[in-house]
């Protein structure tokens, strides 16, 4: 036994350098992670505490104070989160039934419908907003028609923006939900019916809980980018009267060279979003847990 152990040890020692070579394959990735992912975050954090006066740098909390003592930022956060929340809810209300019905379509056609949902995403997002602007933006063909005939101004009341956000991000809601729905074992559903549940009960007790992780990742994938959008609010919504999106404010600050304030808001956003996705993950863990138990 001991000789076996010894030979095994020698074998391991001999082989030791080989996995090291494989490990070293990650070096370029480490470089990318260090210089282009970790360093930017550190710099953001650093800049957010620095006040630049001429060439002298001064340590300060002023950027955070300026950013959050004024109602300006809170208002803009409120506006961004309000629209993001509405858009996410509508995406969910349309996206869930869509994914559900899609999973019931003949398998022969599911692939192509999924492709039809994906395909518009390959047309540049800015190009699509450009198309929408001509329809719903200020002076757009539908917007003018509605103003003239119904005194309903989609550009000024924010409806155009909500439609635009839903239009752009709906696929991000549909796809994760659909992926979890088709993974559900039909036996679970049949078992529900055999035990006497009606279709509503089956959906409530079996289908929906099993697709919940898809719903959560859909919500994160829609909410985060909509809350920080720049292009859609710029063209589909009267932000000069309705309040700017947080992304637009960061854009304006950075373009004027106020890196400190821009960094402070960015850090705040990053922390907020980390908390949100951690919370989502927690729920998600319960979802996978219940899946595992069945």
């Amino acid at each position, binding site marked *: 036994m001991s000789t076996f152990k010894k030979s095994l040890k020698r074998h391991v020692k001999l*082989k030791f350098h080989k*996995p090291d*070579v*494989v490990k*070293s*394959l*990650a070096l*370029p*990735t480490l470089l*990318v*992670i260090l210089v*282009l*992912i*970790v*360093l*930017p975050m550190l710099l*953001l954090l650093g800049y957010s505490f620095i006040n630049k006066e001429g060439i002298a740098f001064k340590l300060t909390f002023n950027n955070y104070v300026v950013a959050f003592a004024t109602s300006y930022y809170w208002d803009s956060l409120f506006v961004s989160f309000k629209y993001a929340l509405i858009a996410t809810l509508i995406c969910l209300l349309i996206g869930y039934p*869509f994914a559900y*019905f899609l999973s*019931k*379509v003949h398998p*022969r056609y599911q*692939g*192509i*419908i999924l*492709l*039809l*949902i994906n*395909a*518009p995403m*390959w*047309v*540049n*997002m*800015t*190009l*699509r907003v*450009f*198309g*929408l*602007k*001509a*329809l719903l933006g200020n002076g757009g*063909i539908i917007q*003018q028609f509605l103003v003239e005939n119904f005194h309903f101004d989609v550009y000024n009341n924010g409806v155009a923006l909500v439609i635009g956000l839903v*239009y752009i991000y709906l696929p991000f809601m549909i796809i994760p939900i659909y992926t979890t729905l088709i993974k559900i074992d039909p036996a679970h*559903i049949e078992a529900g019916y055999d035990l006497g549940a009606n*279709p509503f009960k089956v959906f409530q007790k079996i289908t929906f809980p099993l697709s919940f992780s898809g719903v959560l990742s859909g919500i994160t994938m829609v909410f985060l*980018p909509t*809350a*920080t959008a720049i*292009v859609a609010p710029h063209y589909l919504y009267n932000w000069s009267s309705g309040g700017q999106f947080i992304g637009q404010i*960061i854009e304006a600050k*950075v373009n004027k060279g106020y*890196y400190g304030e821009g*960094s402070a808001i*960015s850090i705040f*956003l990053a922390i907020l*979003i*980390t908390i949100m996705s951690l919370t989502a993950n927690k729920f998600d863990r319960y979802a996978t847990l219940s899946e595992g138990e069945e």
Partner: protein
Amino acid sequence: MKVSKTTKRFRIIFLSVIILFLYIPLFYIVIFSFNKSSSLLKMSGFSFKWYSQMFDNDQLMDAIWNTISCAIIATVVSTIIGTLGAIGLSKYKKNSRNILLAATNFPVLNPDIVTAIGLLLVFLLFNIKGGYFTMILAHISFCTPFVIITIYPKLKTLDSNTLEAAMDLGAKPLNAVVRVLIPQLKSAIFAAASMAFTMSFDDFVITYFVTGASINNISTYLYTVVLRKTKDLTVNAFSTILIIFIVIIVIIRFIIDQQKYKSKKIKN
């Protein structure tokens, strides 16, 4: 559980309406790309003039070239780095690996604007002037994490002993990786590459911040030039070409799908 015909019909109508909703702005772009005048409100006649003007629009042509070349370079580089990175990381100790994987998740979770400003600060620190080079570096930095998170889970499902076996049989480590691991990862690598390409092709926010006003890709060109003057429909002509290209891909895929389905049915 049988569903009634009315339910079925309702489902199909619902699916069609939503798909139509996703395509209306695209139809609109296509139709007005053939407009004689530069109006987006009224068709005043049919013409190809925006198509011929498109090739004379140097700014647009530059933007298209920048977008495509940058997407190709960023895709190739980030796919190679990311694939090797995923393979290398899988051999790391659990703790350091988890920390590194969490770090790669930053750009995936963070809003683009946060990533963009972080990168801008890095380029300022090293005194690299915004331009094509910073655009490519930035695209590599946000594509690589997506490649890693696509390939790493697939890598974990593979039997790690195959690599050891190849090395025990005398293959050099690099040779073993290329001959044993890469072929098994082919479909994941392809998925990662197409995702990287789409993300780079579609990017606005990050390119906008890291290039300054020095060069444009299609998105920033639209944002900074076209949407301000709007009397220029050459962009619609370009979008139409892009849309036609995508429609062709969709049709080909549909035919392949149907054929596959038929042959499967015969087999069964």
